[in-house]
């Protein structure tokens, strides 16, 4: 996660060289240092106390991942989680000192992490943990009052665009009951022995202070994708019916409105030209 826009005004002096070598010694395997850094830094890194820095940096990164991915950690256990996290840390060190945001690439890492191959639901669970964090730290915004939508004239409704709340996140998982696995672990609850292995989707948002979530089907996810793309309710309805021909649009909308999924709405200025 090296920042591409890093400062270009680095002085070529001794301090910069010290920091290059020190940073390398912090993360390189201890046995390799004698051959990869100058002797003075290798000697510094050989002092027993150097381990305090190595341990603090690694622990800080792993602690952050464990805090940001609690459902994943609960599923695999602390020991497995921290071992996997240590590997990820070496691949993708934090670029942002706000460690709440650290680990954006962790789900992708788990998806290609060999020892996790027998846990194919793990990346999906990680994505929902990430959505929780994003919803938690998203900008504050008012929630669209369902009564305001109910008050829209019927002829204006097809040309209306609903704006997803800045905290709203949703995803459809076609291969596994990710919502059930994630939400049970997030709530520290046990999974049923006979878990129904079916596709599931999830919606997370933060209508007030706290992140809340509901299960969402493929039609609901398609609806929100359309809304997020700035499309009208008429177009969003088409998208829903494409996914699920018998979808109950009225029920879907009232469920989403009740969950505080939207922050506002407008009437699409070109609607009449698109749908004369």
């Amino acid at each position, binding site marked *: 996660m090296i920042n591409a826009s890093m400062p270009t005004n680095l002085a070529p002096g001794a301090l910069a060289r010290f*920091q290059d070598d020190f940073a390398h010694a912090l993360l390189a395997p201890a046995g390799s240092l004698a051959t990869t850094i100058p002797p003075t830094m290798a000697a510094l890194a050989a002092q027993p106390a150097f381990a305090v820095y190595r341990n603090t940096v690694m622990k800080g990164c792993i602690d952050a991942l464990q805090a940001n991915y609690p459902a994943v950690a609960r599923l695999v256990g602390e020991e497995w989680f921290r071992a996997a996290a240590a590997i990820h840390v070496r691949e993708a060190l934090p670029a942002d000192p706000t460690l709440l945001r650290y680990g954006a690439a962790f789900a992708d890492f788990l998806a290609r992490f060999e020892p996790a191959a027998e846990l194919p639901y793990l990346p999906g669970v990680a994505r929902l943990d990430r959505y929780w964090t994003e919803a938690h730290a998203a900008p504050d915004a008012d929630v669209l009052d369902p009564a305001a939508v109910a008050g829209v004239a019927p002829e204006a409704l097809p040309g209306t665009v609903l704006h997803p709340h800045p905290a709203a996140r949703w995803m459809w998982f076609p291969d596994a009951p990710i919502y059930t696995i994630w939400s049970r672990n997030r709530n520290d609850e046990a999974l049923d022995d006979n878990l129904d292995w079916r596709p599931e989707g999830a919606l997370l948002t933060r209508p007030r202070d706290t992140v809340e979530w509901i299960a969402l089907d493929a039609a609901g996810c398609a609806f929100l994708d359309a809304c997020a793309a700035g499309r009208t309710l008429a177009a969003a309805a088409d998208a829903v019916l494409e996914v699920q021909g018998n979808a109950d649009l009225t029920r879907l909308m009232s469920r989403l409105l009740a969950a505080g999924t939207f922050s506002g709405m407008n009437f699409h200025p070109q609607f009449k030209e698109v749908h004369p």
Partner: protein
Amino acid sequence: MTTALTAGLGLKPQHYDAALACPAAGLWFEVHPENYMVAGGPRLAWLEAIRARHAISLHGVALSLAADAEPDPAHLKRLAGLARRIEPALISEHLAWSTWRGVYHPDLLPFPRTDEALARVADNVSRTQDALQRRIAIENPSHYLHIEGHARDEIDFLSELARRTGCGLLLDVNNVYVSARNLGYSAEGYLDAFPGEPVMEIHLAGHTPDPNLGAALLVDSHDAPVAPEVWALYARLIARIGARPTLIERDDNLPDFATLFAERERAEAVLRTPLACAA
């Protein structure tokens, strides 16, 4: 504004309710601004609620002032934005580096205190003070390594930094104790030589022996009560330089609010009657 501050506490999410309700006069709370650099949500809402009742200090860990590079402008901008929003009583950072070539290392890393480093740190402190439009305090970190190539001792370096930039200093008494033990010098001697005038804030915290090396290496772990030796050093310091806003830092192995508040009361007692406490 700072004259009203007595002893304060690090603010932890587990203690938000108790912190908000605590009526003690002069009580203030310190946070790492990095934990509140979010667009919105409950973290900021809590900080603002507590700010409405108590003074806040922003104690940064990521400006990386001792890196041989300017502070990340985006990070500095976020810090300035948070400072505008919270209007903190104090803003502080460390004589250390953490971010380097776009990577954030979550620690306070050491460097050889050369003239080159002094020029760079002074420039970085000045840039920060310009961006924030105020004076900040720079903290002495804990030391573990014997580093070759120091041209100045730490007090000389910090004094010259304060002279060049007008910055204040944050004197962490536990860090002095830990560093003196680890590197083999006198903590009393260090504290007696530390310039009192620029000290804007004092930190007190707990430390622990290294799990592998034992008492030969003390780690500034912030996971234990302030040690008796550190209390004694603190009382001696206050008797010499007078009262300064003093923070009890605790980040791990967190006790309940009342236990931390009792430590805060002890620091407050030293600030009220330093000579009796230093006896």
